[in-house]
């Protein structure tokens, strides 16, 4: 009975041992003499490696330092495990795979022990042995070493006696290499375009830092310059040990550790070090109707592996007249527009110099009277702002004494019937009197006479509106005198500027506005010292949005990040929405006459979402895509091919 128990324990221990071996990184001592100067080596094979497989693997050949020299005996060989990749493997901290440019690699790592300082012939023999005995990809042989080993790396890669040696390497990483820098060797490395990443401590007391500095300088000053240029990392440290940090998989520059850096390169293929290009977003297409003549551009740029270094706006197509407040910021204001379709391009450049561009179309419609929509009557509310006892005695107009209250009573329509509509201003500095002699064409002189003015940017809220209807708004702003003031009216992302000095004819107009919770919010801002509001006309279009009317301008634009891809589109459309709203989201497509041609309902969750729609059955043409969720609405134009 004792023996079976003993056997069970033995079996258990063996199974435990084998189980551990299956998971751990296995580095095997091979007591094979490759040259008289190397009697043994450590072999690390990637998980899943099969000698009979046709799969090929990149190889790292690691050259140890002088302190690890040995005769390759079982007693001395473990010295090789003190530093570098063999140490990481032995500790189980060497990554089992690396993903570079979307491709996943696993390394074979060969770490020989040398009896004496290795010659280039020794190194070449090990490379040949490895290629002949393992599934090594001969186009991906990477040579690295530290101190003595680093010096041997420089000597092999820049070998002046055998021109074939440098040609075997896909990249080298010499670390505090103990080799006196040579212009000639530097030229050889450069002429073979061997990718180099060298490391050193700036206060290295053993191998002076100029070894690395000069080697890299000689390589990069070769004519023609190598591709890629040699790079170096000089750590601000005083010891000889630069290898612990250099070999640490967690140490990265440009998002790559030394192993990932190696894998960018393949022998015979000159590869530009990867840089993920930036992504430009010029914002959603916009449409305005004159006299609204300015829009706020909403450009942005992102860079997955760095940062955006610059923004550049340029006009690609469209009328010659326009003004950009800046061509070098992400979101400038575009003003002074005339009727037509503009295309502007936003080009972004990342910190590595890569660029990306995106175009946005700005459609400026001619000032036309919006035809009364079918399905309901058009009604109008006219409002005169004033500040004292001189109300306008016209029954079709409402008088709002803003000096008395910043919240109006409910207005009446021009036909005298009551409405639920009212207005409020959040601020007013005072009311100006333009006098009785003013002559105007935009509105009765009694309306233009008094101007509510402010030295602050402020908000006008029009309430009591019907969410199912669209509205047009026209604002009057005028002040006698030449004081150089311009008032900007903004609804959603659409601006309309009025130069108010002695203004008698220019109004700010918006059309096809969709109320949000029964309200339209208007920002009234000053471009100079004052902003003014003398009166307004609100036209109620009696048409329900869901049936026939399309909004050309969205209201209450939130930070939605609504994007549509692709545009133009043939069939499949990807809508990307990023906001914190949740609930039933309606996506509608209106044709150019305002008729809803398609409608989708989606249960949106808070945060980013992607919605994939098919519109292949629509006729070719321009459509307005409107997204609506609760109080939020946003529109963009799409071109169906």
């Amino acid at each position, binding site marked *: 009975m004792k023996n079976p128990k003993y056997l069970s324990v033995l079996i258990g221990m063996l199974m435990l041992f084998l189980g551990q071996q299956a998971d751990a990184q296995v580095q095997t001592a091979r007591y094979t003499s490759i040259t008289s100067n190397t009697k043994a080596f450590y072999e690390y094979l990637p*998980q899943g490696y099969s000698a009979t497989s046709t799969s090929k693997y990149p190889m790292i050949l690691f050259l140890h330092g002088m302190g690890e020299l040995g005769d390759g005996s079982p007693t001395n060989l473990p010295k090789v495990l003190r530093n570098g990749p063999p140490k990481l493997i032995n500790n189980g901290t060497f990554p089992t795979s690396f993903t570079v440019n*979307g491709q*996943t690699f696993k390394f074979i790592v060969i770490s020989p022990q040398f009896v004496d300082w290795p010659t280039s012939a020794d190194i070449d023999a090990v490379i040949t042995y490895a290629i002949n005995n393992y599934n090594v990809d001969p186009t991906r042989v990477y040579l690295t070493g530290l101190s003595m080993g680093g010096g041997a790396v420089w000597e092999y890669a820049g070998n002046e006696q055998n021109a074939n040696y440098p040609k075997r390497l896909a990249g080298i990483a010499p670390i505090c290499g103990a080799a006196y820098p040579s212009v000639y060797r530097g030229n050889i490395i450069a002429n073979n375009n061997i990718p180099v990443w060298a490391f050193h401590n700036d206060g290295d007391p053993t191998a002076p830092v100029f070894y690395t500095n000069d080697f890299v300088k000689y390589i990069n000053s070769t004519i023609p310059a190598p591709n890629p240029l040699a790079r170096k990392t000089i750590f601000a440290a005083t010891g000889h040990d630069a290898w612990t940090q250099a070999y640490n998989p967690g140490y990265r520059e440009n998002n790559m550790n030394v192993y990932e850096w190696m894998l960018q390169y393949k022998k015979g293929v000159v590869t530009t070090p990867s840089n993920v290009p930036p992504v430009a977003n010029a914002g959603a297409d916009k449409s305005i109707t004159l006299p609204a003549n300015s829009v706020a551009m909403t450009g942005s740029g992102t860079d997955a592996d760095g940062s955006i270094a610059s923004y550049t706006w340029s006009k690609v197509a469209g009328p010659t007249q326009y003004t950009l407040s800046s061509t070098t910021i992400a979101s400038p204001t575009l003003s002074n527009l005339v009727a037509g379709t503009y295309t502007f391009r936003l080009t972004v450049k990342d910190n590595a110099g890569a660029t990306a561009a995106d175009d946005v179309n700005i459609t400026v419609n001619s000032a036309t009277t919006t035809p009364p929509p079918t399905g309901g009557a058009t009604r109008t509310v006219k409002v005169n702002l004033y500040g004292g006892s001189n109300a306008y005695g016209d029954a079709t107009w409402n008088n709002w004494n803003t000096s008395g209250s910043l919240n109006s009573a409910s207005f009446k329509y021009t036909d005298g019937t009551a409405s639920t509509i009212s207005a409020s201003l959040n601020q007013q500095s005072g009311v100006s009197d333009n006098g009785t002699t003013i002559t105007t064409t935009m509105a009765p002189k009694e309306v233009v006479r008094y101007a509510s003015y402010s030295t602050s940017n402020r908000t006008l809220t029009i309430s009591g509106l019907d969410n199912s209807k669209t509205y047009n708004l026209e604002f009057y702003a005028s002040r006698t005198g030449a004081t150089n003031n311009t008032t900007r009216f903004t609804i959603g992302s659409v601006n309309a500027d009025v130069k108010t000095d002695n203004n008698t004819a220019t109004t700010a107009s918006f059309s096809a506005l969709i109320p949000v919770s029964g309200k339209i919010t208007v920002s009234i801002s000053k471009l100079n010292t004052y902003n003014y509001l003398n009166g307004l006309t609100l036209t109620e279009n009696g048409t329900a949005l869901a049936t026939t009317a399309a909004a050309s301008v969205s209201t209450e634009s939130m930070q939605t990040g609504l994007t549509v891809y692709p545009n133009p589109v043939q069939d499949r459309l990807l809508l990307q929405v*990023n906001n914190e709203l949740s609930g039933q989201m309606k996506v509608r497509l209106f044709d150019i006459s305002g008729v809803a041609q398609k409608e989708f309902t989606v249960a949106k969750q808070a945060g980013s*979402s992607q919605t*994939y729609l098919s519109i292949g059955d629509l006729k070719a043409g321009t459509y307005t895509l409107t997204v609506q969720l609760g109080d939020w609405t946003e529109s963009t134009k799409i071109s169906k091919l």
Partner: protein
Amino acid sequence: MKQLKFLSLVALLAFASCKKEAADQLAEVPEVTAPATGASWASSSNWTNDNTLFSTTLTDSKLSSEILSKGLVVLYVKNGASVHSLPATFDNTSWYYQLSNGTITIMAQAKDQSFNKDQQFSYLIFSADELATLESKNISKEAVMNMDFAQASQLK
């Protein structure tokens, strides 16, 4: 007993050897990035409907915010031998879908209540990096959106 011990040890070693071989075979083709998802077809038993709009939701933690902001997911529906890429309209049903964090909601606007829920779905997730790689091979995101299942699967 010695013979028994020896035979057991041989058996163990043989077993261990077989196990390692099997593991090697399983881990073959090591250079290929593992498919992100969607290798198999899944059906849904949690259909709900609002009149003739039917919907079902699948969950997948791989549908991360990163995928939602920069990636792409192409969805396929299989009914019998027919595989359709979505979104699309066929058999009087308009199919579309939405991705949110960790979920994919499939919607089918059917002509009536007789909508056939016995459908299977598969999808492929493309990260921003994968799309960039494809872009470098002149395969646009739009092209991927319009590929059939066999074509898109070959990209993974």
